[in-house]
C-alpha cells in the first residue's frame, strides 16, 4: 500500500492516506457499502482546529441535506466553526460517540473520529476529490487560511 501524502503546514506535516477520497471543505470520505459514504475531518482541518473539545450535529439519519448546508458545529482550544455538508446526500448515520466525547477526532481522525455517513448519488460522488486533487486544493487553501487567521488574530 502506498505511503500517505504529506502537506506541510508550517513545521507541521499533515498526512493524507491515498486510499480515501477528500472534499474541498477539508473532510475525507470513504465508501462503506453501496452508495453509502462515511465522512470525517482531514488532518488539515484537525490541525487548524487543534484539540477538539466539543462537537455537535444538527442532522439526523433520514434527513436529505444540500451541499454546503449548515449541519453542526465544532469547538476546539483555539477556534470554533460551523460545519457544512460536503456534498448533497441522505444522512444514514451519525457518530453519536463524539457528542459526549469528541476526543477520537483528535487521536483517530481517519478511524473512530468519523463524523457521519450519507447516501450519495453519482453526481455527489463525482464531486469527491482524489488525494492528488486535494493536495492541489490545499496549496491555495493554505494561503487563504494563513491570511484569515492572521487577519482575525491581529484585527
Amino acid at each position, binding site marked *: 500500500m502506498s505511503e500517505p501524502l504529506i502537506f506541510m503546514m508550517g513545521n507541521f506535516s499533515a498526512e493524507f492516506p491515498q486510499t480515501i477520497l477528500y472534499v474541498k471543505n477539508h473532510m475525507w470520505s470513504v465508501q462503506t457499502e453501496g452508495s453509502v459514504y462515511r465522512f470525517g475531518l482531514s488532518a488539515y482541518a484537525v490541525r487548524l482546529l487543534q484539540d477538539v473539545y466539543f462537537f455537535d450535529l444538527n442532522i439526523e439519519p433520514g434527513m436529505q*441535506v444540500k451541499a454546503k448546508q449548515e449541519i453542526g458545529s465544532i469547538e476546539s482550544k483555539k477556534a470554533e466553526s460551523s460545519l*457544512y455538508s460536503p456534498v448533497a446526500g441522505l444522512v444514514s448515520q451519525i457518530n453519536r460517540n463524539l457528542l459526549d466525547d469528541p476526543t477520537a477526532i483528535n487521536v483517530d481522525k481517519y478511524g473512530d473520529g468519523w463524523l457521519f455517513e450519507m447516501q450519495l448519488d453519482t453526481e455527489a460522488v463525482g464531486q469527491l476529490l482524489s488525494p492528488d486533487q486535494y493536495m492541489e486544493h490545499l496549496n491555495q487553501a493554505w494561503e487563504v487560511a494563513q491570511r484569515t487567521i492572521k487577519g482575525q488574530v491581529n484585527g
Partner: protein
Amino acid sequence: MADSLLTVVVSQGQSRNPEKRDLEKAIADICAQIPGVSVVVIPHLYDLAYDSETYQKLRAIQGDMVVFAWLYDRAAHWVLDRNAVRGQVGEVLLVPADYQSDEDEDEEEEELNDKDRVANLNPRPDRFVYCIDLRASEDKEAFVQEVKRIAANSAAKVLQNRPEISQWIEGTPTPESLLRYLNPVSSVQADAPPQTSAAASIYSLFGANELTKVEEHPTRRWYPVIDFSRCTNCMECIDFCLFGVYGVDTAETILVEQPDNCRKGCPACSRVCPENAIIFPQHKTPAIAGAPVEMGGLKIDLSKLFGAPETDEDAMQVAARERDEQLILAGRQAVGEVRSKSNAAAQKERPKDELDNLLDQLDSLDL
C-alpha cells in the same frame, strides 16, 4: 434546614475543555468555603428538563442565587425563568470585556419602558438571581470576589428585614463591613483573632455550608427561550413558526409550549421577533445567543474556511430560508417568504386613500 444566605449554582459546560472543567470545580470548591453560601453543581442548565431532579432542587431554593454558566447572563436568566426558577435580574459587575458600557444599558432600560412587557405585567418574585457568564474571566479569584460582593449585598438585605440581627452588630453595617464579618479569613491575616460572637450568630441563622452535585446526564436540546423583560406578547413568533413550538397560557401569554418540536440549529423565529426577545442560547451569533449587543466572537471563526456560503440577505429573508430548509428536512413543502401583517405594514406604507390625497392638497396650499 435553614436556607442559605446565598446559593451558588455552577452549571457545567458541554465542552470537554479541561481548562473549563477546572474553572468550574475551583469556583465550586472555593465558594463552598464562604460563610452562609451553599453550592450546587449541576449539568448544563439548558439541556435539563423541567421535571429534572436539578430543577426540582433549584425551585425549592428561596433566597438569592448566583448562577455560573457558559452562557450569556441574559440567556441563563431566562432559561431558569422558563423552568420556574424565577427572580429579579441581579446586577453582575463581572462581565466579559466586550459587553457594552453601563451608560448604554441605562439607555436600553429607558427604551424598554416605552411598551408593556410581559415581565412588567406579571412580576417575578422579589429575590435576586445573579447570572454570571463563565467566559467573563479566566481567573477563579475574580469570580469568587464577585460572589463575596453579592453575598454581602444579600446579607445587608437580610439585616434590613431582620432587625434583631442588627442588634448583635453595633450600628448599621455597610455591605463591605458586613462582608468582613461574614468572611473574616479572606480580609484579615491568618493570625487575627477568631470571629466575633455576633458574626457567629449570623451564620447560625443560615444552613451549614454545603457542596452538593446533582448527577444527571441529559441529552442535548435545542429550543428558544423568551426574554419576558423584552417580549410584548405580539405573537409574531407563533405566526412564523410552522413546527408548533409556541403556544399561549391561560392568560393568553406567549410561551414555548413544545420546546422539543424545535428544529435543531434553526434560529429563524428569533430573527422575526421585533423586540429581539427570543434567545437561542447555543447559537453562534452572539446577538441570537443573548449577548447584550452584537459583538465579535470570542474565538476565531473558521466557518468561511470550512465552506460557509457568502450571502447578502436581510433578516427576514434569512429567517424564511432557514424555515424552508427545516420544512424540507422534515419532509414538508417550503413556503418561502410570507410576511405577517404587522411586518408587512412596517415594510411598506399603505396606499394613499382619498382622505390622504385631500390632506396632501390642503398641505400644498400656501395659507
